[in-house]
């Protein structure tokens, strides 16, 4: 018995691998649908959603390999307000100083690509002053930013001001998701929000005062290459850095709402990030249900149409059947890829349209196969017998022919899923995908447009394509083993 089971296992090895791949995909689909709400799914194209992420970062696990060669790349680090290691608070006669210190242990061989400091402060009647300084491991301390905020702030105004002075793109999106701006009219809750970038002019101006501390010219160097640099050569200085954010406030209403220190890294996340700071694993996860939906919808519909069309044309025969075959031939003699491009160019970029296209050109091949079978089965003695007994054609087809074709239809179904998924990926790659959510083809298109191949961003190219390959592989393996099973059944 056990031996027999092993034999069966051996025969359908491919099918079992396919089922495991399918289970893997179904797990991702369910996980995505449960854990990522649909509102978040639409954020893929929203740049401000991704602003805290690094640009073109490799997956974090590459550092395990790079660590062997002592070439670790800086990791993306975000310090939130709760991470402030040290809080001290001193009070003068008419002012208060609040210090928040973030300790960052830096032990990488390369400079971080950038950093940014978003903060928001609730401003009272007298506006506070903000100072940002850095204590380096060699004992030097730099003040990189000092600004006294202006009075009568609203969040939007301060952002506009930032726009003018610092050449930073801002939109009306809040910098922090949990920021509550409903009570903006209340004068005591004016909130000044700003995001300082390492490229901000104010930072580079403050840094230019420390020219004498370095043995090499720092003029024109980006801020992160000065701050994290050794004083003798322009190489990274390892050790404990302290970032200090101080506010000088003059009344009781002034409160720091939120601060973050974002030190952009070159590695982040399971699959890295892309040119637009988007997390690639997020796109992969959202792409899974979309691909499954496309594949399965197209496969079910086109298999059904193909089955019944083929059955009818084979069973009817004669002139009607001949005419139906001519229609199939017309569909088959069209170069589909070219036609798909021309149609989606003219009639829009919606997912349902693409699905319709794949159904329209997916059924003729299946219909042709089913037609041959139905001609064969039509001439079986028992079918002819039931015909003589006066059963209606409809009943004969449904009761005698369709059940015979079920194994093959299942195999056809499985084999036509990958065609739709590959087709959708190719069309999305050309830019005809539905832009409202990411698909794997679109991710590859973005990669190609950003020249990811030439710049060597392999983490942006491999995962989407691999997912396409895995999905179609799963269905091909299952389809093949179903097909061989159907053939075996027939021999018996």
């Amino acid at each position: 018995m056990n031996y027999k089971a092993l034999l069966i296992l051996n025969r359908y090895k491919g099918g079992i691998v396919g089922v495991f791949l399918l289970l893997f995909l179904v797990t991702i689909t369910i996980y995505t649908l449960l854990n990522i709400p649909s509102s978040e799914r639409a954020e893929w194209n929203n740049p401000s959603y991704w602003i805290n992420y690094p640009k073109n970062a490799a997956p974090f696990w590459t550092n395990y390999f790079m660590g062997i060669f002592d070439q670790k790349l800086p990791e993306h680090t975000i310090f939130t307000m709760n991470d402030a290691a040290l809080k001290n608070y001193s009070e003068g006669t008419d002012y208060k100083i609040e210090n928040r210190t973030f300790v960052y242990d830096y032990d990488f061989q390369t400079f971080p690509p950038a950093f940014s400091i978003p903060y928001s402060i609730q401003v009272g009647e007298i506006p506070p002053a903000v100072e940002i300084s850095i204590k380096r491991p060699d004992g030097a301390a730099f003040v990189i930013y000092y600004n006294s905020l202006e009075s009568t702030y609203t969040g939007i105004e301060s952002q506009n001001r930032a726009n003018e002075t610092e050449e930073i793109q801002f939109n009306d999106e809040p910098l922090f998701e949990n920021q509550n701006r409903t009570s903006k009219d209340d004068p005591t809750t004016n909130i000044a929000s700003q995001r300082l970038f390492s490229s901000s002019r104010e930072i580079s101006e403050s840094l230019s005062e420390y020219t004498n501390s370095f043995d090499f010219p720092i003029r024109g160097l980006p801020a992160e290459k000065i701050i994290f640099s050794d004083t003798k050569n322009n190489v990274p200085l390892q050790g404990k850095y302290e970032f200090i954010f101080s506010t000088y406030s003059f009344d009781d209403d002034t409160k720091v709402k939120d601060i973050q220190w974002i030190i952009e890294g070159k590695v982040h996340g399971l699959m890295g990030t892309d040119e637009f700071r988007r997390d690639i694993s997020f796109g992969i996860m959202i792409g899974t249900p979309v691909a499954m939906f496309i594949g399965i919808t197209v496969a079910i519909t086109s298999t059904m149409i193909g089955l019944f069309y083929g059955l009818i044309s084979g069973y009817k025969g004669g002139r009607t059947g001949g005419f139906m075959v001519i229609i199939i031939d017309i569909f088959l003699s069209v170069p589909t890829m070219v036609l798909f491009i021309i149609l989606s160019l003219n009639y829009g970029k919606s997912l349902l349209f693409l699905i319709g296209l794949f159904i329209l050109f997916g059924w003729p091949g299946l219909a042709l196969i089913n037609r041959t079978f139905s001609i064969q089965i039509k001439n079986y003695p028992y079918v002819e017998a039931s015909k003589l007994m006066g059963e209606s054609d409809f009943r004969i087809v449904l009761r005698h022919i369709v059940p015979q074709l079920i194994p093959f239809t299942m195999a056809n179904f499985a084999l036509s899923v990958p065609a739709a998924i590959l087709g959708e990926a190719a069309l999305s790659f050309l830019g005809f995908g539905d832009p409202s959510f990411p698909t794997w083809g679109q991710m590859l298109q973005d990669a190609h447009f950003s020249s990811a191949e030439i710049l060597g961003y392999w983490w942006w190219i491999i995962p989407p394509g691999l997912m396409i390959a895995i999905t179609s592989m799963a269905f091909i393996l299952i389809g093949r083993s179903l097909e061989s099973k159907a053939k075996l059944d027939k021999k018996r």
Partner: protein
Amino acid sequence: MVDNIRLQVVSTLSSSLSENQRLNQFDNIEQRQEFIDQQINIQIKSLGLDEPWYSPKKIMNTLFQILTLNLGNSRFFTTHEGSSSVNDLIIEKLPYTILLFTTSSLAVVGLGIVIGSYLARKEGKITDKFIAGLASLSLSVPPWWFSMIMIVLFSFFLQIFPARSTPVVPPDSPGYLASLLYHMTLPFITIVLIGFASSIYYVKYIILRVIEEDYIKTLGVIGIPPRKILLKHALKNASPQLTTILGIGIISTLGGSILIEEIFDWPGMGNLFYNAIIQNDSPLIIGLVYFFTLLYLATRLVLDLTLSMFDPRIRTEDN
């Protein structure tokens, strides 16, 4: 379409007006504009553009233009000589597409026949499974993604081949052919790699079926060496199916060529088509679709004819 005509009429009129003093006798600018509008209306009337799309005049006109291969002018693209005619553009790019895709299809089928017939004779379980697995794998991997991977591998990490396949040397200089072949290598390798496994798989399947037939088995009993049987008899009898594989291979690469050419920046029709789509150059798109379809149908026709030549069984019963 009307915009195109307007552009054409205005450009030809303005050049002839500036040259011909006798025509250029307008009192003011409105009169001149009126004259141009009149000319445009005459053109629209003569082409039947004021009528609905189903009007016979318009359809016959379009059909005539297509039959005489008058595909119009591209809006944004020109050939090396500077002609913007769609025909010239296609004629310039067609040889590149044929060069890459025909040679690689031949290589894929050649590899398939050599290795496939060898494997058919050898009957090795492990190699069989390996080839079958590779074939399923190459069916499920999108060729264009594989191309991107190949570029990352060979152009970024190993730096053997250039990432962009358009040769940097101008076409009329002496080193052009060498440069072209060097730039062609990476796309060629990619297409061969993606296709050879399934080609071997199918060839082996076909040859095994032919070898199983009685007349081939008899040859073995007579004492003809198996190598000779394979080369002289089995391959000959399998040739119709092998031709079908070759044809299907060429046809399927024609469609896929758009993406692969675009990714490698190979200067062929597919790349031109992709750029035309991006720029929304409608005359060029329509012309290229027409040509792709023609090429596709021609390949199918040639395939059918060669098949009937190889295999007398396929000929129709009528003659």
